[in-house]
């Protein structure tokens, strides 16, 4: 009996996982896209961890992927910080997506300062989610972000170009957004094997 309990606790901690994908719909950090939730092992974003979103180009739905999550967090009164966004967020579109702009903070920073700012925001634990756009982030910088997200129990999202897919990353979840065809490929997910099948655009847009 005790061995069964131990195994369950190991499974719960996701240090050991079953071969087949088991999804729990009660995950706290749902992505807001049913198709994506069904594919991810935790049923949503990995909590208190860094998620990497590798984007082939701008304007292929990288914000639509996160908007439901941001809308849910801001509605709950959590603060969302954009560290060094590449462009200006268009308020009307963000409002239409349900994001409460009063909880949105934009931090203007470049390169190293942006990484520092993102790490500070994550570590402080006073934000619900931190989005950053590191351009020249190496393995060490990403690991720092991952550790900061863990210690601050904050959702971290890093947008990076798709070319980085070949480099290893300490992020708990790596998604690649592809355009032709428009789909999401899960490159890595902690707590399960990366599913081989891709999620077509209809599942999350």
């Amino acid at each position, binding site marked *: 009996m005790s061995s069964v309990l131990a195994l369950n606790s190991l499974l719960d901690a996701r240090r050991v996982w079953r071969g087949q994908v088991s999804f729990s719909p009660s995950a706290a950090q749902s992505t807001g896209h049913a198709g994506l939730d069904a594919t991810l092992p935790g049923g949503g974003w990995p909590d208190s961890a860094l998620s990497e979103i590798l984007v082939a180009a701008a304007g292929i739905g990288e914000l639509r992927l996160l908007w439901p999550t941001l809308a849910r967090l801001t509605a709950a009164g959590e603060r969302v910080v954009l560290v060094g966004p590449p462009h200006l967020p*268009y308020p*009307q579109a963000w409002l239409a997506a349900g994001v409460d702009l009063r909880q949105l903070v934009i*931090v203007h920073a470049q390169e190293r300062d942006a990484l520092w700012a993102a790490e500070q925001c994550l570590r402080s634990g006073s934000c619900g989610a931190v989005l950053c756009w590191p351009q020249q982030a190496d393995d060490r910088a990403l690991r720092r972000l991952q550790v900061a997200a863990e210690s601050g129990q904050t959702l971290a999202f890093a947008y990076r170009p798709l070319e980085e897919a070949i480099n290893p990353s300490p992020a708990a979840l790596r998604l690649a957004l592809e355009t032709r065809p428009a789909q999401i490929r899960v490159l890595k997910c902690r707590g399960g094997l990366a599913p081989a099948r891709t999620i077509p655009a209809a599942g999350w847009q």
Partner: protein
Amino acid sequence: MLWACILLPQLAMDGVLRHRSDADAPLALLGGSPQRRVLQAVNPAARALGLRPGQSLTAAQALTRTFATADYDVAAIERWQRFLAAWAYAFSAQVSLHYPRCLLLEVQSSLRLFGPWPHFEARLRAELTGLGFRHRITAAPTPAAARVLANAYDGLTIPDSALLHETLGRLPVERLGLPREVAAALTRMGLHSLSQLLALPRDSLARRFSADVLAHLDTLLGNRPLALDFYRPPDVFDARIELNFEVESHQALLFPLRRLTADLAAYLAGRDCGVQHFTLYLEHRNQTASRMPVGLLSAEREAAMLFELPRGRLEYLQLPAPVLAIRLEALELPAFTPEHRQLFDERPQQSLSWEQLRERLRTRLGDNAVQSLGARADHRPEHAWVEQPTELSLPPCGPRPGWLLAEPLSLRESSLRILAGPERIESGWWDGGDVRRDYYVVETRAGQRGWAFRKVGDGGPLLLHGWFA
């Protein structure tokens, strides 16, 4: 009510001696006109040499030359008295500077906090001695009686008015604080103590002396209240630390800076207010002081935070010359509203509040680095946003992209697919920002969706203005 009177008999001398290392050397304070300097106060060593207050400087120098002199500075006395009032304000909410060279404290209401009066008095004495001021302390039910008793006694405590009548009754009339001629007249009448004076019929006293005399006696005995102006701490914080040597590195400035900000925090806590702007002055020799303004987004008063901010900025400051003194000035002290905290915080290890985080980011990245976003009811994309959060309901509009490009880019691509449009945006003729554009939703060959426009009546390429990300 119990009033304590702290009489400072040597205030001017003590104030000067605080800054001198050789307190036991003979010292005389000089006043009077430059032509005729007069000794105003002398310390015990000078008194042993035969110097007395009231002697002229020439007479004193004829006696001995082995004494130092300093100016008898009335403004300095005033300053020391206010300094001591600020000190006493920590012990009582009612501190008055009604009498010169003397502090009046209402101590009855502070007894619970500072213990019974003998303990309290011992503490006051210990702190005053530590500060270097000689003093006499008496306590009585009325402030005027406490002051008069301090003339004759030290350490006397009168708890009730019956005992007060008895003690005051034994006091000679010269010590009652009456005008000198009144006291002389009373003595000539054969009245030597207050009890004799009080035994006289009241109306005869009123006939012989001016009304002030009876009023003064009534205030002494508590039959008539004494209107006191209470001390209020100043509304600005201004403190300065003179460094003992010339400082050229930032590191060496951190220690005095920490002391200044800790003083500021203690001061703010005492006044129950916060600070939003303060200025640090780094003073140099023969140069104007380097000025370093520190601004916060909201009123704060936490010592660690007040230290952290100027420290971060100090590191970026170029020092033009060695620093001799450092001064902190806070002119506006707005009310401080503490943030509401949950008893059970959802994130127990939350180490940094958002306000602290925001100030930390602003310190390193610049004042404008942290911004909010708000919508404006304007159709022109350039004017559709502001940097403050807004609360308004927006009119419905067509599809809008998630990203807006700061500068429109020309789209030189042959295989653009137009998905929707045109949507005409024509506005701003009234404020000079005239816009006449046709907006299209376009898709590039790579599958990117953009928001592009062409000016009305202009056949050029489409200009990309946003991404439907």
